[in-house]
């Protein structure tokens, strides 16, 4: 039995001080026409215990909607969203449910940024990394330094961000919808040198609903979750190179080997939490060399990526799936593609864990 995405919705990634976890979830759910009457709800969220002092957020979201449906909350750091879609499609493929709604939801603005930064840094090993002063920007910086030593230019990373911002101008729900230029990088705030604020994802609140069904024929559009896979990597400090994203490389290579997937020809969303990561990945997959030419990858991160569409941490994966779903089934805002196949790549921390989904348009 297959699992098919038949619709969804997103809330603009932003600082939604007026909405809490359940308000955002409800907003996403009620904007999704095909999301009614699910057998099961899978909530993807990484920070509710820390941000909102709420354990078991799935239950509290579902109770709030008044439709008391079975629910489970999935947490897998930054890859929670894709993990939730994996779980949802498993429920359907196994016959345990006929219709499942994935609700990615995250609040990051209940506290000032410097506190949110601390909560987010806990995706790393508290005892062996966080206490020792290591934070995610540190690994991104070490990775960027390795790539610079390999011969990549600083402009290569800046141009990734420029491209993401350009793409996001066409995405209504993106957080940062303005263009930037490579020159701006000279003066922008440094997080961990040489990684700057512009090399880092945009942090915002968000919610996205995705409806999955075992019966695509009853719907106007449908995209099959053809394949899902995940892999756990080594802690970054145990690798020879921090920028060796072995888990992500392996999974994306497998898509090529098993399904003939060529990232130049399909819709693809890569997890660009920091600019060195997608560059390292594309390089290890052989799509670019140190000249960093991204031409030919026409459908790469059309959403604007984590950089410009934004990164509501645990909800991001759901956004990525929604965007690929839309791009495969008519697009948005005049933006469409010729591809029938889409790839979603998600990562937790510096490739501590990687997840990929292969999506194919069914109708």
């Amino acid at each position, binding site marked *: 039995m297959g699992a098919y995405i038949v619709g969804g919705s997103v809330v603009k990634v932003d600082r939604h001080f007026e909405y809490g976890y359940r308000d955002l979830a409800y907003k996403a759910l009620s904007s999704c026409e095909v999301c009614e009457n699910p057998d099961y709800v899978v909530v993807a969220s990484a920070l509710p215990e820390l941000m909102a002092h709420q354990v078991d957020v799935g239950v509290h979201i579902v109770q709030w909607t008044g439709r008391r449906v079975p629910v489970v909350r999935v947490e897998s750091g930054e890859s929670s969203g894709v993990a939730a879609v994996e779980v949802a499609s498993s429920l359907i493929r196994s016959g345990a449910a006929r219709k499942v709604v994935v609700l990615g939801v995250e609040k990051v603005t209940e506290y000032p940024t410097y506190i949110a930064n601390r909560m987010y840094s806990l995706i790393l090993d508290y*005892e*062996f990394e966080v206490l020792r002063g290591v*934070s995610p920007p*540190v690994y991104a910086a070490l990775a960027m330094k390795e790539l610079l030593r390999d011969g990549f230019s600083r402009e290569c990373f800046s141009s990734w961000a420029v491209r993401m911002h350009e793409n996001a101008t066409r995405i209504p729900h993106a957080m940062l919808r303005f263009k930037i230029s490579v020159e701006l990088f000279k003066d922008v705030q440094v997080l*961990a040198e*040489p990684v700057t604020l512009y090399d880092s994802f945009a942090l915002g609140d968000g919610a996205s609903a995705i409806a999955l069904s075992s019966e695509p024929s009853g719907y106007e559009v449908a995209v099959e979750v053809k394949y899902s896979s995940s892999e756990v990597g080594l802690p970054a400090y*145990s690798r020879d190179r921090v920028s060796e994203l072995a888990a992500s490389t392996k999974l994306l290579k497998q898509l090529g080997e098993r399904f003939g997937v060529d990232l130049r020809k399909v819709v693809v969303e890569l997890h660009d939490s920091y600019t060195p990561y997608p560059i390292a990945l594309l390089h290890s997959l052989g799509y670019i060399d140190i000249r960093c030419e991204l031409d030919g990858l026409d459908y790469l991160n059309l959403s604007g990526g984590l950089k410009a569409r934004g990164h509501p941490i645990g909800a991001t994966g759901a956004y990525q799936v929604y965007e690929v779903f839309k791009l495969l089934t008519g697009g948005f805002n005049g933006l469409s593609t010729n591809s029938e196949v889409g790839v979603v790549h998600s990562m937790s921390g510096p490739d501590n864990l990687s997840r990929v989904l292969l999506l194919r348009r069914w109708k």
Partner: protein
Amino acid sequence: MRLSVPQFWRVKESLYKLILTKCLNCGKVSVFKRSTCPYCGSPKVVHEESQGIGVIESFTRVYYKQDSSEDRLPEVVAVVKLNEGVRVVGEVVGVKVDEVSEGMVVEAVLRRYASDDPYGVIYYGLKFKPLKQNNTR
């Protein structure tokens, strides 16, 4: 009380000392006291304490604010290759941030990691300081 007492007490051997885990199955050495090899998963491991001397392979100057860390920023975090051949990440102290360089020889020193002021517990752990004690400048 913000910082846990039992959590710290339980791992403090790995914070107070640089314990290396050597795998008898695949031969690889990793850092921190582990029950299994992070590379091959085998439980056949032995532990030994590192001398704590190494070389900075790579580093970054950090300005990223978390909690109220401005009293410690800017700081330098480095990947140190210990003489035993294993890599470990940690903060570099006893330096101005623009003095750190790749190839610098460092030794592990005990410093405060965190303190739950004003009433709570203090966490101590190892950071890295230049080994040389005499000025060449």
